[in-house]
């Protein structure tokens, strides 16, 4: 039991810090540290810079162009990147379809798609959620009919994140509507977003952002060689994928950065003529979330070392999802309350296009209410926290 890093780990951390200091674009870090959302071109810019350094795929094995880092190195990289204000990894390529292609794709598929994920040339998006299939993913309805060397795909996907920028989409489609169980008869297809018949329709969220889309597929022709693994075995690959979605789900590094921002704001705001951070109730609220975050960090480190011992974490990821999102929501809420009435002035897009000017009140107040609204999503997506509690009671408590 030892919280200290080994000399090797410390050396690695310095290496990461140096890289971030030298290569992370200041404008990107500034946006992150100001609570603004990040533009697609910024994500790609950063991905290419990481690739140049040979760190394009921190979670991947060397043979596929990854870094081959161990869990502790990954933890250090995530922590330092978040602290420095680097954008989070967009998971669809590196953390979702990538691992599926590595595990179940053939060599041709691996050579075709994997390098372009690592070097940032391809932007991927997800095609598993459907209007009728949220938590109940296996009830998806999108059909793919085999015609010679192609599938003809028809259906609708939704909650497609940032698909408006995507080159490729990975889709779960039903290839055998007559399969006895709905988990059967599903296949896993990779589809070029430029294919005729694909329409992307924005879903505008309550704070006016365009983060998610509906994707309509009308008679989209997909070559059979774009199918990963066997026909009708897609559910196996989907479960594998959703398992990987959970890595770094606790988001400890980012929450630590947000906690600092909360404290900075609370130092600048006043209440009864004193700094807000000295108000006993508000100070106690900050302390509570900070303590929850300390516990979350220790828990995620425990899960991490269990992984390191190849004792796979499994359902423990549900703990990290629930507690991680609770902390994220608490932080976004406290920041909003910290600025009081000046949280109210709102300009659509102020979080997206924001240039740190504000309509009224201090600049740091401008995105806070929008962020609070936006963060309601974290307890819903990736398997709602209710679903996570089902998982804990079934997989861990055996109920």
């Amino acid at each position, binding site marked *: 039991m030892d919280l200290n890093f080994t000399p090797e780990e410390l050396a690695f951390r310095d290496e990461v810090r140096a890289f971030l200091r030298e290569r992370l674009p200041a404008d990107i870090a500034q946006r992150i540290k100001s609570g603004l959302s990040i533009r697609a071109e910024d994500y790609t810019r950063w991905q290419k810079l990481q690739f140049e350094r040979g760190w394009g795929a921190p979670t991947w094995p060397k043979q596929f162009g990854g870094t081959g880092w161990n869990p502790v190195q990954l933890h250090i990289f995530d922590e330092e990147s978040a602290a420095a204000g680097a954008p989070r990894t967009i998971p669809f390529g590196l953390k979702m379809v990538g691992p599926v292609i590595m595990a179940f794709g053939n060599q041709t598929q691996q050579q075709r798609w994997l390098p372009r994920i690592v070097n940032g040339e391809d932007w991927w998006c997800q095609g598993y*959620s459907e209007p*009728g299939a*949220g*938590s*109940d993913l296996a*009830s998806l309805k999108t059909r793919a009919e085999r015609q010679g060397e192609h599938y003809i795909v028809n259906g609708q996907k*939704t*909650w497609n994140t940032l698909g408006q920028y995507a080159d490729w989409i990975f889709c779960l489609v039903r290839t055998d509507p007559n399969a006895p169980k709905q988990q059967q008869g599903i296949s896993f297809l990779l589809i070029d977003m430029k294919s005729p018949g694909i329409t992307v329709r924005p*879903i*505008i*969220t*309550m*704070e*006016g952002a365009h983060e*998610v889309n509906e994707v309509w597929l009308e008679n989209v022709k997909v070559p059979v060689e774009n199918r990963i693994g066997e026909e009708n075995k897609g559910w196996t690959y989907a479960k594998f994928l959703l398992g990987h979605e959970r890595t770094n789900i606790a988001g400890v590094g980012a929450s630590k950065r947000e906690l600092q921002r909360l404290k900075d704001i609370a130092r600048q705001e*006043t*209440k*009864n*003529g004193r700094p807000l951070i000295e*108000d006993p*109730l*508000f100070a106690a*609220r900050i302390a509570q979330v900070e303590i929850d975050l300390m516990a979350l960090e220790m828990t995620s480190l425990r899960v991490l070392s269990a992984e390191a011992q190849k004792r796979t974490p499994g359902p423990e990821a549900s703990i990290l999802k629930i507690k991680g999102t609770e902390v994220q929501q608490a932080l976004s809420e406290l920041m*909003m*309350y910290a600025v*009081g*009435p*000046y*949280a*109210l*002035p*709102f*300009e659509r897009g102020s979080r997206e296009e924001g240039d740190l000017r504000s*309509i*009224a*009140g201090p600049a740091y107040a401008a995105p806070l*209410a*929008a962020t*609070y*609204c936006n963060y*309601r*999503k974290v*307890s*819903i*997506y990736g398997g*709602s*926290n*209710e679903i996570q*509690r089902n998982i804990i009671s079934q997989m861990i408590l055996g109920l």
Partner: protein
Amino acid sequence: MDFNFTDEQQLLADTVRRFVREHYSFEARREILQSKDGWSRDLWQQLAALGLTALNVPEEHGGLGAGPIDTLLVMHALGEGLVLEPYLSAAVIAPALLNRIDDAKAAADLLPAIASGERIVIVAHQEPKTRGELNHVVTRAEKSGDSYVLDGHKSVVMNGGAADELIISARTSGKSDDRDGISLFRVAPGASGLKLKSYRTIDEQQAADIELTKVKVPATALVGTEGRAFAAIEAAYDLGLSAICAEAVGIMKAVNHATLEYTKSRKQFGQPIAKFQVLQHRMADMFLNAEQATSMSYLAAIKCVDPDVGERRRALSAAKVAVGQSGRFVGQQAIQLHGGMGMTDELIVSHYFKRLTAIDLTFGDTDFHIQQFVAQSR
């Protein structure tokens, strides 16, 4: 002891509810939001035609001279529709201020026009460092000859941009947190040196920041006695606080109804999600919260005109805390139970959520009023 509404009050409630149902569908509201102003003079006139703008104006000035319970019923119904017109600012707070301040001329000038809906008068009082306290006024008014010169900054003034006329609080004496030395002035929005920046708020309501730089007004612009305006301001905002609690309750009832309907229709794992016991108990708690908030909105309406200021402020702070906490729980859980759909701009539930959030940040948030309550309970 009696917890019933009079027949007149029932009639009033039904009238407003019908108005909202007929003129304030979610789609109609969306159209109003497309407009530059973000609210509708037309609908304002219709509210006036129903006598609603006359509600808080005394009869001698052409009003109905109704009480806080009537205001509660109106706000409750307007809440269900997320109405965008400046009712709270222009038909509750402004007339309440003019009723309470001792100024026959200002009352005679303005109240009839407020009652008829002709003029929209907005009180500009809140300042950048205010979190709900009403005595914090840094804006100064210097007497020079037979005029006053105003300098200062009023912030997040609800519906400031809608004003035909502003009533601005400014300090004629004392330190920035003194209760004495606060005065009120009638100022035209177009007055030279007055910079009014109007904007939308997160809940798509309207507010404005007002910069005053050497704004010169005649001595006759003074409303009431110089330096003695605090009690009237407090009385006006006390009614306003009770009214916004009623609005929040109207929203909570609507949110709970929408959530119940959604969970009954939304199917997952082969059954409506309303069949899951965890969601049933969550909705039971949402109902409990709305009921407790309802009770406190009644208490606020009854107590907001209590002559005993301590008792009045104590009850109002308690109500704001209860309503703020209930609204936060109900709003957040409504989004959670709607899942992804709750996050979208398409469904009204996210708009209810945003308004409930804004209400908790208006007139002092939960923590502020817990501390006020503690202070009043000493």
